[in-house]
Structure formats: C-alpha cells, structure tokens
C-alpha cells in the first residue's frame, strides 16, 4: 500500500510530462523548416482545349463626319442638338454670310448690265451688217466707192468682235455670280449622310476657324469595337472568328460578334495588336461610342494533348517545369508548353505523359529535397 502512494505521484507527473514531451517532438518536426510542405496533386490529362484570346477595346463608330466651315467665320444659326437624327442633305446650320449676299446682288446687277451691253453690241452688229450688205449691193452699180464699202466691212468686223466680247462678258458675269452663290451655299452646314449628332462643339455666334468642327455626326448603325490584344498572346487572331463582347455597362451579358479585320499596323508603344469586331446584331439601345468592352475570341479547338493547370508550372534554374511525383519521390521536370486557354489549362508539348502525377498547389516553394505531405486542400483555402 505504501509503495503505491509515491507511484501515484510519479504517474501524475508522468501524465503531465509525457504528453508535453510528445507535443514538443511533434511541434519540432511538424513546424518550421523541418516540417513537410503541404501539396496537392493533379494528374496530367489528355484532353482537347479551346484556346481563346482576351482583349479590351472601346466602342467606336465606323463612319464619323466632322462638319465645319471651310473658311473662318461666325455661326449664324445651328438647328440641331446632340442626339438628333439627321438625313443626308439636311441643312444643319449656317455660317454668317457677312457681305456675301450683297456681293451676290451686286454680281446679279453686273450680270444684267452685261446683258444690256450684249443687247447694245447685237444692235450695233445688226446695223453694221445691214450697212455692209447695202454698200456691197451698191458697188456693182458704181453707186458707192470702193473705200466706202471697205469702211462698212471694217465696221461690221468691229461690231462682230464687240458682240463676242459682250457675250464673253456676260458669261463671265454669270460665272462670277455662280461662284458667289456657290460660296454662299457653302456657308450652309449640310449633313453628308444619315446619322445622329454626337457632338455639338459650338453655338450660334461662335467664331470658327477653317476646319474646326461645329457638329460631329456618327452613323450609329456602323458601330464596331476597336479591340486591343497584347501581342504576346495574340497568336491565332484572324478575321472572321467569332467573338463575345461584354460591355462595361452590361456586365454579364455577352453579345455575339465577329472579327471584321486585323489592323495591318500594330501599336508600337503599347505592344498591342488592333482588331475591329462587329456585332452580329446591333445591341439595343445602342452602346455609347467610347464605352469600354471586354472581348473574348474563340479560336479553333485543338486536338487532344496532355494538359495541366497553369498553377502547376514552376520555375527552377531558369526553366519552366513541373514537380513530378514518381514512386513517391519529387523531381523537377522541365516541360515545353503549348497553347493555353483562358481557364488556365496549358498543353504540354514535351516532358510529361498523360497520367503523370504533378504537384498542383504547394504551401511554399519546393526544392528537390523538400519533404512533402499530400493534402486535399492547402490549409486556409476556403472549400
């Protein structure tokens, strides 16, 4: 009985110390640099992937017309406002003619004066002609002198010349008048095509220089998306491919479209390729010009090949590769990567076979001598 009492105390002490020691050993081995690295594995699958390209762009109008005066002047009136629909040939407004109307009127009078001068020249010529004819009839009968006949002929020639001068004068006066009328009508701002007023830059009374635009008309039925793709991931971009356009204002609703053309000139500074994507069906209401759009372009489906998630790709010694598990041992396998899709699947062209086990996620960077501990999910990641 007596020997049991101290052994009870010893047991009590051991009951505290042994778990403490066990916990200490567990802690020593399971934490810090000695602890195995938690990893999750994935199997290389052979499957087909559909690569896609992703770019962003802005909605633009294919046809934009900037309407403005061809010479400096002041706006007299402007009847259209932003959002108005206009027809081809419609007068939108007019520049102040200043003295142009007076000059047209003056030219009109100059024209009438030329007409009067023509009538005078015609009368003179008719008289000169009849005089010349009369004297020529009198000459055979020797009733008039040779000299008198010559004088009449010369007068007729002068009258003819004066008549044609008067005619040309009249033509000139008409042309001068027409030119001024043309200039006058050029002051009118006329819509060259059907469209909608997008911008009204100035109001009546504003002085404009030649070439400055007063209103901007766009053709809303010609809207397209000017898309930019990073050159590094633009392989396979071609016209005719189908596209999904997501407008910033209509997130979640993808509109169908297709690539109309690839611009022959890429952007040098931003290292982007430019393409125009048109809508299959014009969205209603029409998206505003300048709205941001995200464009996804589907490329052709590729033949089956070993595919890994891109999260499995690691760098080791400057090479891309994966950590492969073969017979429970970890080894770095450099791989050659092929096409990838937007869901993160990457084709492996060399280095791996379908069915190989590779590390997908890991808690920290791996090295050849790392001890690993395969888990379903890395701690801390929500299911």
């Amino acid at each position, binding site marked *: 009985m007596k020997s049991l009492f101290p052994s009870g105390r010893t047991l009590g002490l051991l009951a505290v110390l042994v778990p403490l020691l066990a916990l200490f050993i567990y802690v020593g081995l399971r934490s810090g640099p000695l602890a195995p690295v938690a990893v999750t594995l994935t199997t290389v699958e052979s499957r087909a992937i559909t690569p896609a390209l992703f770019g962003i762009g802005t909605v633009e109008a294919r046809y934009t017309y900037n309407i403005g005066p061809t010479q400096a002047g002041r706006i007299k009136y402007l009847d259209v406002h932003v959002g108005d629909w206009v027809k081809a040939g419609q007068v939108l407004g007019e520049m102040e003619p200043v003295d142009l109307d007076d000059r047209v009127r003056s030219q009109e009078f100059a024209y009438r004066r030329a007409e009067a001068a023509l009538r005078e020249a015609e009368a003179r010529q008719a008289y000169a002609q009849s005089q010349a004819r009369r004297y020529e009839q009198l000459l055979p009968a020797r009733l008039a002198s040779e000299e008198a006949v010559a004088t009449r002929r010369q007068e007729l020639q002068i009258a003819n010349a004066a008549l044609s001068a008067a005619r040309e004068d009249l033509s000139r006066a008409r042309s001068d008048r027409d030119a001024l009328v043309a200039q006058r009508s050029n002051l009118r701002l006329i819509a060259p095509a059907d469209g909608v007023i997008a911008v009204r830059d100035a109001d009546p009374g504003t002085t404009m220089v030649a070439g400055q635009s007063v209103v901007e008309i766009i053709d809303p039925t010609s809207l397209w998306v000017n898309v930019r793709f990073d050159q590094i991931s633009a392989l396979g971009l071609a016209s005719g491919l189908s596209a999904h356009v997501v407008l910033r204002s209509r997130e979640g609703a993808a509109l169908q479209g297709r690539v109309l053309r690839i611009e022959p000139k890429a952007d040098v500074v931003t290292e982007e390729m430019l393409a125009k994507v048109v809508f299959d069906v014009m969205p209603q209401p029409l998206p505003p010009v300048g709205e941001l759009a995200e464009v996804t372009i589907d490329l052709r489906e590729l033949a089956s090949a070993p595919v890994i998630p891109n999260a499995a790709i690691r760098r080791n010694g*400057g090479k891309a590769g994966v950590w492969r598990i073969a017979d429970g041992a970890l080894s770095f396998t450099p791989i050659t990567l092929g096409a990838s899709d937007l*869901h993160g699947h990457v084709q492996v062209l060399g280095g791996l076979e379908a069915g190989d086990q590779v590390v997908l996620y890991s808690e920290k960077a791996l090295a050849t001598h790392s001890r690993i501990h395969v888990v379903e999910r890395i701690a801390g990641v929500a299911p």
Partner: protein
Amino acid sequence: MISLAGRDILHSWGKFVFTGIGLGLLIGVTLVMAGVYRGMVDDGKALLDNSGADLWVVQKDTLGPYAESSSLNDDIYRGVLAMPGVLRAANVTYLTMQVRKGGHDVRAMVVGIAPGKIGITPGWPPYLVAGRQMTRGHYEAVADIATGFALGERIQIRRNTFTVVGLTRRMVSSSGDPMIFIALKDAQEAQFLKDNDAIWQSRRRTEANPAFNRPSVPGLLDAVIASQSSNAFVNAVLVTLEPGHAADEVAESIRRWKRLTVYTRAQMEDILVGKLIASSAKQIAMFLVILAFVSAAIVAFIIYTLTMDKIREIAVLKLIGTRNRTIAAMILQQALALGVIGFVVGKITATYAAPLFPKYVLLVPADSIAGFVAVLLICVLSSIIAIRMALKVDPAEAIGG
C-alpha cells in the same frame, strides 16, 4: 541511490510543473520575439525570392523599387533585353494601397506583372495554393491568402473591378503587406488614373490653360489630354540571367551602357535588410535583449525562491550528514529540470502562437537551440546563488525556531 531532486520534485510536483509552465510562457514570448525579428528579415527575402529576378534595373541613382520610388519608361526593358547575358527582362510596378472589397478594405501591395510565359517571366507568383494563374491580360488578380480574399471574389483597385482567380501564400512586401498581382497595363493605369474626379479636374485644369486650349489649333487640347492620361512608366525591370553569366558583370554592363542603376540579389538584400527594416529590426532586437535579461532575472528569482522554500529541509539534510555535493546536485538538477520544462512549454506555445500574429513570425531551429542553451546556462548560473545560500545554512535551523 535515490535521486534527491526527483524525490523533492515528486513531493510537490504540481507546484513545480506550474512554475515550469509559467517560466515556459516567458521563454515562449522571448522565442516569439526572436521569431518576429526573423520574420521581418524573411519578409524582405521573400519579396526578393518571389520576384524571381537576378537583377533589378531601376531609375538612376535611386534605391528602388522597394526602398525608394523609382520610375522608368516602360520600353527600357527592350534595351535591357538586348544586353549580353540577359535571358529575360520584364517590367514590374509596385503600389501599396488600400484594396476595396465590398464595404471594407485591405492594405496590400499591388504588383503589376508583365505578360509572358508562365514560369519563366520574372515577377509572376512562383506558386499558388488555389485557383490558377492569370490568363487574361486585364481585370484578373492573384491575391495572397493573407488578404482574406477568396477565389471568384470581385475586388476594387482604383477605377476597375478585378476577379480573384488565384490565391498564393507568403507573397508579401518588405513591410509584410500581402501582395495582389494584376496585369501590368492595369497596374500602370491604377498608378496613374487615380479616380474619376481627379481625371475630370485634371482635364479642366488643362482646358483652363490657354497654352493648350488654343482656338486656332483645333485638336490640340484633345491631343494634350490624351498624352496626359496615359502612363508609360514602370517601377523596375526584373532581369534573369543566362546560365554562365555572372550577375555583377551583367549589372556593370547595364550600368555602364544603359546609364541606369542596377542591383544584384546581394545588394538588394543589403538594401532591404540593412536600410529598409534596419531601425525596426534594431528596435525588435533591443526589446529581445531586454526580454532575455528579464527572463534570466525571473528564472534566477524562481530558483532562489524554490530553494529558500525548502531551506528547513536542507538544514535537516545537513543535520543528518548529507554531503554538500549531494545538496548542490539536487538544486542544480531541479534548476535544469525547471529549465527544460520551461523550454519545452515555451517552444510549444511559441509554435502555436506564431500563426496568430498579424505579421509573419518565423521560428528558426537555430534560434530554438540557442535559446535552449541560453536557458540551461541561465538556470546553472542562477542555481549557483541558490546553492551558496543552501550551503551556508546552519543545520541548527532544522530544529530551531
């Protein structure tokens, strides 16, 4: 031979163990403090490791991109790429900011990474714990798990909304802020296009400037505004080297011919550890030293008190003729046992407490071993005082008042 120390401990093991645990908590705090310091240094190194670069090309005469701000034109990388020995060069931007998600925001370092082949382009997160790497050139993000974001969540960075597609771990800035990786172009825009109000105000400022808003030159204002609202700058160019080229050599040639400042990995570590976190690291180190002294004093005091508690028993032992050596060994063994229990408890508490800290706490085995040796040494030293007291005791005290 019976162990006097063991017998004594067994006699009042509850008190002994609890004293040990109390001591352990103190040692645990000291170990955590050492871990905080190591964690700060490791944050800096993790930043360098995760960038995957061999060289950092930054604005001339700056300590960028981490310790100072640095700004380079984003086409400089093309020139760097042409230098001999350079395998890859990629632009990168760093911007520490509040990232919004719903109602709350998280302090994070937004890293803009250049597009390129996954795995070999420097700057990309080297490993993930969930999700995937970015595949789209815009509006996708890979976030560190410490941000608290989950896969598929939408986060707001400046003017745009990003979808979290991947999660990573231990991707932190030198000050321990978690990183969020986004595409370079988005990051450049985020650095420059601050918010819509700022953009409008900037446009109005430009419009108000008669030098830019000239009626005689239609289109000038638009051109000026367009040139103002683009950002062609990055913070650094990350360079990886071709095998067989020495980092210092390539760095020197870029410095010489491109007239930029270049740092190698060793120099960058010097900047981060020696300059960026130097004062806060010293602060922690100072605190660690004080804590170590306090712990030593408390250990000495505990052992002294434990010995004084049983001074009467020791007098009895002396009275029955126990040798001094036996008594000294008893006290020393008890002190060491206390130290060992304290260390074990300290190590366990430190390990379990470390993940609870908001910033990274790195417990290095070497620190633990050094701590263990120090604890034993302190126990031995403090037991010497107690032994002296015990040996000086008068055996008559055993029977006296």
